[in-house]
């Protein structure tokens, strides 16, 4: 917290800010397509290769090298456009976006400028509010094709950042990976819901892209990145304020926080009688605030011109309609269908969607789990454990593992309590459910399940005794067996308790 900004006395919080100012949004999302080869050459797009092992004369921009477009990338982009209700342009061209920065060895990025392949679409989204669900239509300005840049490593300097760096090292494996940019029109009329609308849009977009199978859409790995434009104008003024653009916001939660942060920052500047500067800002993950980056270059500074080395893309209606026929079920329609199929109450469905658990729950059910159990395990125990660790539940355990645990519960091999221990074991990295059960002796017939709980309670109450038994002091077991007999009201088979106890303690 060394960079705390002193707050002025008349500091507005978010609610006060949106009571005086109307936020307007613009969202630009970059998505890496999951083609096998790059946009304009046949180098692999595989993530994580050794530096500069996936380059060639084309993506290194060597003299005389000629690019050829990846047909699959064009089809993926058209699919995205169709899914976003866009018109597909009958004639579209690539353009050179010229800038001198070593992340592109060509000194330009091949992109699209005034002739993008998809234009004028929309995406309907829904958010939960205190007055019930609210729908918003986010209009899409354009969807265009371009290529990703290389990765820079700044060496020298105190923080690994560019300031004070002595030199930079470039790896061009990522340079030329197909990138699609999806740009909204101005999103107004959201009022105080601007942060939720921004998040819901990116979330719905991610679901659509995933359903199309065109991208990994992993925000945390950078295959989907969001730039958030925010401006404020006095309520009912009918004007548009100056916008800031917060770059590379890399999670849904950060999209929401970035909008909140910018509304608060800009409103306080305006309250102080200051001007908003049109600039690029960087999102600070820790504080939810933004800090200024370089001032925005004007569009003409990029000196766009049509790319002479590539021919125009002019999809005919036959091609477009063939692609349209392959569009999968819309995520919103799918959610409505699953809600009905699983008989999920409204509130629980909202929780599943907001937690991003729909896919894993569906997979778990498809693997044989009863819908109600699949839902309650993911939303309950697994989400609780994920919250404790501040991670996404889907990174803790797989649908296959959860389905295995649930099937053992359904067969009566595990009680809910034992299953919880199995899940904890899996999450702790002790292996698959069957391995955890074998290691910890958790898989028991129902009588044993109750005994095991009593045994574990006795061990927890007398850890030193348990340690002595682990160390080989078998007669010490008497104290724990007595405790279990007491806990079970004398109904347990003492020999069985002894056997289970010693086995559990590795004797």
């Amino acid at each position, binding site marked *: 917290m060394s960079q705390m900004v002193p707050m002025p006395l008349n500091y507005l919080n978010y609610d006060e800010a949106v009571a005086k100012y109307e936020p307007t949004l613009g969202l630009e999302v970059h998505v890496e397509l999951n083609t096998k080869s790059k946009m304009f050459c046949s180098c692999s797009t595989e993530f994580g290769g050794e*530096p500069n092992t996936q380059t060639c004369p084309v993506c290194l921009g060597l003299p005389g090298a000629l690019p050829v477009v990846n047909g699959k990338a064009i089809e993926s982009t058209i699919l995205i456009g169709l899914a976003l209700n866009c018109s597909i342009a009958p004639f579209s061209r690539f353009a050179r976006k010229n800038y*001198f920065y*070593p992340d592109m060895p060509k000194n330009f990025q091949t992109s699209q400028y005034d002739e993008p392949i998809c234009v004028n679409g929309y995406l309907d989204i829904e958010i939960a509010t205190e007055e019930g669900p609210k729908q918003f239509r986010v209009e899409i300005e354009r969807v265009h094709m371009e290529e990703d840049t290389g990765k820079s490593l700044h060496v020298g300097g105190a923080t690994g950042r560019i300031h004070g760096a002595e030199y*930079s090292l470039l790896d*061009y494996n990522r340079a030329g990976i197909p990138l699609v940019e999806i740009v909204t029109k101005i999103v107004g009329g959201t009022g105080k819901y601007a942060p939720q609308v921004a998040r819901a849009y990116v979330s719905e977009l991610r679901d659509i892209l995933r359903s199309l199978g065109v991208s990994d859409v992993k925000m945390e790995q950078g295959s989907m990145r969001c730039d958030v434009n925010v401006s404020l104008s006095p309520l009912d003024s009918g004007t548009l304020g100056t916008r800031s653009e917060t770059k590379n916001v890399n999670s849904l939660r950060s999209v929401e926080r970035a909008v909140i942060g910018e509304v608060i920052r800009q409103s306080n500047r305006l309250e102080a009688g200051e001007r908003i500067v049109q600039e690029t800002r960087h999102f600070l993950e820790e504080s939810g605030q933004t800090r200024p980056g370089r001032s925005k270059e004007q569009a003409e*500074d990029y000196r766009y011109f049509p790319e002479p080395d590539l021919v125009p893309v002019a999809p005919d209606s036959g091609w477009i309609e063939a692609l349209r026929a392959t569009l999968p079920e819309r995520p919103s329609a799918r959610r409505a269908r699953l809600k009905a199929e699983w008989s999920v109450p409204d509130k629980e469905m909202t929780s599943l969607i907001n937690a991003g658990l729909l896919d894993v729950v569906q997979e778990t059910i498809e693997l044989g789990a009863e819908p109600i159990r699949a839902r309650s395990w993911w939303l309950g125990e697994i989400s609780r454990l994920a919250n404790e660790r501040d991670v996404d539940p889907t990174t803790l355990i797989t649908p296959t593992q959860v389905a295995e645990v649930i099937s053992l519960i359904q067969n009566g091999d595990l009680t809910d309590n034992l299953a919880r221990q199995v899940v904890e074991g899996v999450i702790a990295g002790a292996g698959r459910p069957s391995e955890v059960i074998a290691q910890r002796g958790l898989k028991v017939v129902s009588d044993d399940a109750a005994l095991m709980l009593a045994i574990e309670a006795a061990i927890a109450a007398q850890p030193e005794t348990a340690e002595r038994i682990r160390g080989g002091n078998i007669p010490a077991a008497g104290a724990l067996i007595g405790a279990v007999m007491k806990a079970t009201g004398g109904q347990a088979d003492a020999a069985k308790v002894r056997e289970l106890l010693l086995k559990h303690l590795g004797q």
Partner: protein
Amino acid sequence: MAAISRDDVAHLAKLARISMNDSELDHLAEEMDLILGAVARVQEVAGRDVPPTSHPIPVKNVVREDLVRPSLTPQEALSGAPAQSEDRFKVPQILGEE
């Protein structure tokens, strides 16, 4: 028509990160203006029925299959680099950018 001013050249030089002295700026402004003037004459003969073109041959939809082919080795890729380190291209510190 004097389309390119000395300031335009200075601006372009800055964008291209090329250092230029005063006499070079004057010289280039004059030269680029001449080149633009020569190219502009094409517009005099191109009628409204001639669409602006970006490619000499009227072809469209030339695409390749999404297949991976072998890339250069890092040694080959770096063989023309003025400087390198750790299998990466080494470039001077980048100023004026964040």
